[in-house]
């Protein structure tokens, strides 16, 4: 060991060796590491994408140490290095083949960094050898500047409920890569995520770290209402509110995904949509049942699993608000989205029972489908060439009113 006071570098060197190391384990590690180096993915970034602490991969790389890549993580190496599994797992290894490793490990540390130099020779079973020189540098306490563009994208994902379920760093990285090509590095993602998991962040965008299958996950810290809505999402049962066109008093109902995977409105045995004037009344009705309706498969689990969470509406349908929005000079995206929600709701009811089928005819009229198509093409699926919304407003409103009138007749709202 030598110590240089002038530049405060502390250097230690050890001569080390390992015998009878599994060649396939070693070569999987080497192949993967060399691909990562070629693609400029650092050891820290690999650790982050596996879902581990920064030093995890550097420690595995120590050729004199027993660690190797765990079998359960082999699966994610291709995604991390953007390569195929056959480029990582070698093809020409004999059964039980082992190698010997002999060389030196030098560690240099100073105030700013820690550098590991591994100089070693691998001896194969036929006596041939190959030399390796690896340098692994870890920078200490470096300042991390957050990429503002990436932070905004993550906030958007948070507000779109992407983080309501825990996500691995690799999940997020794959999504970013597919949508933004290679604009953001894993390191930038790690820095942006650590900003969002910091306690000082706006609670609306606060993420928390968790662990799943020994890998770090990121998820939104949900408030009670969000937890309830997530509970609904998990059970595919939601509370919705319908505000009839001529009143301000909402009617509450259950919208659910049936075992045939179709979305439906909960109806009584006699076929009428079950409506209540309050959430409490609706829940009481559901809990008592009394053979009034045929319960959806998940209803009981949904009711018993909500515990003390505050029951909350997922969607409010208000045709009057939609009409007001379309009568304005320029139609907002929110108005379009509200219209599409209502249009889909009518479609669900029209398809679930023959007695409501006639609704579909009122739905499939020129101006209504034109606006629906426009919204789906431009806002849901992002057409390559955005179209301009062009429709006959007065005719649209008249058609929409007819649809609403018919819908309200079907769900027995009196005019």
């Amino acid at each position, binding site marked *: 060991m030598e110590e240089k006071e002038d530049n405060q570098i502390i250097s230690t060197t050890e001569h080390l060796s390992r015998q009878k190391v*599994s060649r*396939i*384990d070693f070569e*999987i590690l080497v192949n993967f590491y060399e691909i990562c180096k070629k693609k400029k993915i650092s050891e820290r970034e690999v650790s982050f994408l596996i*879902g581990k602490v920064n030093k995890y991969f550097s420690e595995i790389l120590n050729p004199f140490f027993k660690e190797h890549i765990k*079998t*359960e*993580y*082999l*699966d*994610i190496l*291709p*995604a991390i290095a*953007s*390569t*195929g*599994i*056959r*480029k990582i*797992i*070698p*093809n*020409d*290894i*004999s*059964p*039980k*083949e082992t190698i010997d490793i002999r060389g030196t490990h030098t560690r240099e540390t100073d105030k700013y960094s820690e550098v590991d130099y591994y100089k070693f020779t691998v001896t194969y079973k036929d006596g041939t050898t190959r030399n390796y020189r690896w340098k692994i540098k870890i920078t200490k306490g470096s300042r991390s500047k957050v990429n503002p563009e990436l932070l905004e994208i993550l906030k958007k994902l948070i507000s779109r409920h992407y983080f309501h379920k825990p996500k*691995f760093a*690799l*999940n997020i990285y*794959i999504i970013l890569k597919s949508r933004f090509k290679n604009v953001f590095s894993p390191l930038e993602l790690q820095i942006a995520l650590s900003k969002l998991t910091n306690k000082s962040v706006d609670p609306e965008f606060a993420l928390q770290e968790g662990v799943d*299958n020994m*890998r770090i996950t990121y998820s939104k810290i949900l408030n009670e209402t969000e937890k309830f809505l997530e509970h609904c999402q998990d059970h595919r049962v939601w509370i919705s509110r319908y505000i009839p066109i001529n009143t301000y008093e909402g009617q509450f109902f259950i919208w659910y995904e049936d075992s045939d995977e179709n979305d439906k409105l909960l109806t009584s045995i006699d076929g009428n949509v079950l409506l209540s004037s309050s959430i409490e009344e609706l829940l009481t009705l559901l809990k008592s049942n009394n053979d009034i309706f045929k319960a959806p498969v998940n209803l009981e689990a949904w009711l018993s699993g909500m515990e003390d969470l505050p029951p909350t509406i997922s969607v409010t349908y208000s045709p009057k608000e939609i009409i007001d929005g379309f009568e304005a000079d320029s139609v907002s995206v929110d108005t379009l989205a509200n219209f599409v929600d209502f249009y889909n709701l009518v479609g669900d009811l029209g398809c679930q029972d023959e007695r409501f089928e006639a609704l579909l005819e009122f739905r499939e009229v020129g101006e209504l489908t034109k606006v629906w198509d426009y919204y789906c093409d431009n806002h849901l699926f992002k057409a390559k060439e955005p179209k301009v919304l062009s429709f006959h407003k007065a005719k649209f409103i008249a058609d929409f009113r007819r649809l609403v009138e018919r819908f309200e007749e079907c769900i027995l709202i009196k005019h």
Partner: protein
Amino acid sequence: MVKISPLSLYIINRVIYRLYVLGILQSKFSLILDKRDTYVNNIKNENMDAVFNPIDFPSIASALDWEIHDLLPPDNSPYSDGTLVDKVVFSLNNPSDAEEVILGMKDIGYFKNEKSLSDIFEHLYLTENMSEKRKVITDLLEKLVSNNILKLNNGKYLA
């Protein structure tokens, strides 16, 4: 049923497929790998999270007369993000898995000489109490004959 990584599941299913094609008994294969005779059976068990370890890939490939890469998915396979999947193991109860096996047997020349139904059952180690799997194979052979993939001569199958 436990969950395991898609890659581990792929490799298990490739091995089971190949064992059927070559007509190697699972317990015998375990011994070839220098393991206990229950080794492959445990790995096949959908309620156990046992999987093949990379350290054994060379021995497994060699015993199956394959290269290591034959155990792996092709390089253009979609990337996995590490989400685990249900351990649904390759089974002759499943007609599409059974078809893959019979076609694999045809590819290695098993049907070059005429084979009776009982020859085929014996090759696949389908004992009399495995009536469900036997029925899947019988129905499948009928289908392959009607599609001219196999021929039937005096109750014997031929490619």
